[in-house]
């Protein structure tokens, strides 16, 4: 199994993702420059956090036009796994691989803190090793994490069990106070129809070592690796 971490000008969580895959998952991983277009040797790609293209125009808007993104679309269409974290989630929404959009946090602040998210479903390659309804303590670091979508999209996401993480309090309750950025229905992460593309605002890759305050994020990567190992022929 081989992972790729896509690097745009302005990505800054690429090394965190690389570190987690190489040190914790213990699998081969490459950085993929955004001008590269050959993803044929990879089983999963991570679109990391950061400020691609300086967040010019809209967050994630310009990264969508990087050459690698057409390859990511093909990669996803072939059922391979794509994980977008923070800016990666914003890019996946702009690219149309995930529905909705991320707009400015409701209180306008850039929020950088540990928050709680609830695992809403384990029916994805990214969460199948986690416990349903368990609470993960993971950091967020964003100014535009306020998830919006129209009523129809929200209904579809709920109906198809595609809301993967919701912001919650320490007890797993999705209160308004526990929603850090005003996201619709406390949504912190969603997947596509085929369930092989996941986007989330929190940073599980920054929560894989107790030394960093939490290792709750590691379950996402171990799920991913276990899925790939179990379905080596599929992926």
């Amino acid at each position, binding site marked *: 199994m081989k992972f790729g971490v896509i690097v745009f000008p302005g990505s800054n969580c690429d090394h965190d993702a690389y570190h987690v895959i190489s040190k914790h998952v213990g699998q081969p991983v490459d950085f993929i420059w955004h001008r590269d277009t050959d993803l044929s040797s990879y089983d999963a790609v991570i679109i990391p956090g950061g400020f691609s293209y300086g967040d010019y125009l809209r967050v994630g*808007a310009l990264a969508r036009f990087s050459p690698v993104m057409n390859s990511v679309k093909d990669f996803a269409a072939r059922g391979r796994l794509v994980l977008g974290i923070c800016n990666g989630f914003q890019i996946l929404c702009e690219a149309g691989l995930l*529905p909705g*959009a991320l707009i*400015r946090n*409701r209180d*306008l602040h850039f929020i950088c803190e540990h928050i709680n998210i609830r695992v809403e479903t384990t029916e994805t390659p990214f969460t199948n090793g986690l416990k349903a309804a368990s609470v993960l303590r993971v950091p967020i670091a964003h100014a535009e994490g*306020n998830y*919006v979508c129209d009523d129809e999209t929200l209904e579809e996401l709920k109906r198809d069990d595609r809301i993967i993480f919701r912001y919650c309090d320490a007890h797993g309750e999705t209160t308004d106070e526990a929603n850090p950025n*005003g996201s619709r229905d406390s949504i912190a992460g969603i997947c596509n129809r085929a369930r092989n593309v996941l986007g989330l605002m929190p940073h599980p890759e920054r929560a894989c070592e107790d030394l960093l305050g939490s290792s709750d994020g590691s379950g996402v990567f171990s799920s991913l690796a276990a899925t790939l190992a179990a379905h080596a022929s599929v992926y």
Partner: protein
Amino acid sequence: MKAKVYVTLKPGVLDPQGKAIQHSVELLGFNGIADVRQGKYFEIALDDKLDQESAREAATKMAREVLSNPVIEDYRVEIE
């Protein structure tokens, strides 16, 4: 020839920046402001050889595919 593109948030999409601007303006003593919505404005210099219709078509495509995100924004194009 110039294309002017106005990108605005769709009605109903929360605009916390607009709210903050409204608050600041009210602090200056302006009253009776029902709402402030922040948007974006682009000026695109186009080839003068283009006719009006092609210019509008090109600018509209840019507005739709790059300058706005149809999930949250509307756009309006003017050619002059």
